[in-house]
């Protein structure tokens, strides 16, 4: 095995990816490679295609042109999709916890039904990850009994229970009250430190500066700017990105 090759080969590769909704083109010839362990932050104005981009990676949306390869599997059909979903987790803006299940049941469902873990193993794993997001004492409650920040941390733990290689975040703090944003970002920062490959759509520029290896700026379905976080922040190449940063920082 040539280690240099496996290390340099991207875990996610998007080549000339396009996506239409009817006549509207949400993604236009997008190219993006993400290396194993890399943390990428995606930002851009509303409607620029950020969600569509990451939803194509776990095939919640189907791209209609170009190639997407995730963890060695090209996304072409449903069989590939199933394989890929096993290695990709996703955290949603609205948490999307299962309201009729307790926190513990939310976490155990995937490991039990998909990974075939025994009830005890699933439970142990769930408690481990609840511990990691610092919410173990809420295990027997129902989602609605938790604050937004706690619910989002549960959602992160639910993804982690599937032990994915890649975690996608779609504006994980946008639905939260300001005082709860920090606790979620803290968990995400800790995750980033552990070497998880992450793609995070967010407008939290402080977080981006701290953890992002690379920043991606999207506008009107295109990747307008991409580069190391410090670099693009201090010297944005495109006018649109400069404007965008200004708006975000001054709002």
């Amino acid at each position, binding site marked *: 095995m040539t280690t240099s090759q496996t290390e340099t080969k991207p875990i996610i590769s998007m080549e000339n990816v396009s996506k239409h909704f009817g006549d509207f083109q949400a993604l236009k010839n997008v190219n993006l490679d993400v290396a194993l362990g890399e943390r990428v932050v995606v930002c851009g104005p509303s409607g620029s295609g950020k969600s569509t981009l990451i939803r194509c990676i776990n095939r919640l949306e189907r791209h209609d042109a170009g190639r997407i390869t995730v963890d060695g599997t090209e996304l072409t059909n449903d069989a590939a999709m*199933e394989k890929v979903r096993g290695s990709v987790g996703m955290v949603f803006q609205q948490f*999307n*916890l299962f309201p*009729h299940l307790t926190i513990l049941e939310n976490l155990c*469902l995937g490991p039990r039904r998909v990974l075939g873990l025994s009830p005890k193993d699933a439970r142990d794993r769930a408690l481990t990850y609840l511990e990691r997001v610092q919410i173990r004492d809420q295990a027997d409650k*129902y989602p*609605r009994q938790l604050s937004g920040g706690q619910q989002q941390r549960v959602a992160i733990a*639910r993804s982690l229970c599937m032990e994915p290689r890649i975690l996608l975040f779609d504006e994980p703090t946008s639905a939260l009250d300001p005082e709860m944003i920090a606790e979620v970002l803290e968990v995400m920062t800790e995750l980033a430190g552990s070497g998880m490959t992450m793609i995070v759509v967010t407008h939290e520029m402080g977080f981006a500066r701290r953890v992002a290896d690379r920043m991606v700026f999207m506008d009107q379905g295109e990747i307008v700017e991409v580069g190391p976080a410090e670099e693009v922040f201090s010297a944005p190449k495109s006018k649109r990105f400069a404007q965008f940063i200004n708006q975000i920082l001054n709002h």
Partner: protein
Amino acid sequence: MKNLLILGTSLFLLSGCSGNWGWYVVDPTTPSGFNNLKFMASGAIYTIQMSLTAIAISVVVGLLVALPGLSEKRGWRVFNRTYVEIVRAVPVLVLILWVYYGLPAITGITLGVFWAGVFALALSDSAFQAEIFRAGIQSIGRGQYEAAQSISLNYRDTMRYVILPQAIRRILPALGNQFVYMLKMSSLVSVIGMQELTRKANELVVAEYRPLEIYTILVLEYLVLILIVSAGVRWLERRLMGDEV
């Protein structure tokens, strides 16, 4: 309240017209009255058995018809619409007669009165169950499907563990209504000779010539059954909702 007043007044007038009430036919303190009541009540077991069996079948069939209605594939949706529109258009009474007298002619299979009744009731109700399930499932947001997909649940597990448990909580009141409706519709099976509540009452009327009293008791019998069902559904609702508070 107004209805009760009207009912009371009509009963009073009717009793005036006929000179005297004949409650003796159903007077439990006399041996013949007691026997008559027992005769009438003995139909309850069939009313209950038929309704329960029919509702159980129609819930399952309804769900199986509802799922294709939610498919992305047009063919499946057309199947759903066709089934619902056709089955819903046939009056229950006609369906009962058709199943009992018509089906054997086509298929050679003769169903007993009980199963013919159950089959017709379930078939008729399944179209409504399908619509209830479809609406209930559609009321569950897309985010729940996406969350299930993101942890790799397959379609069956997504339905079984995520979507249906939530949908059923929402449609429970509607399912309760259908059960009440089923109890009432089961009276129609009397026309093919099923010895349920209504048939028993009819037979007693023929023997005793006391329709007012006997049918009044019949009304009360259905009322009691339906109140029991309503209480049961409310209990179930509380139990299922309880864990969400």
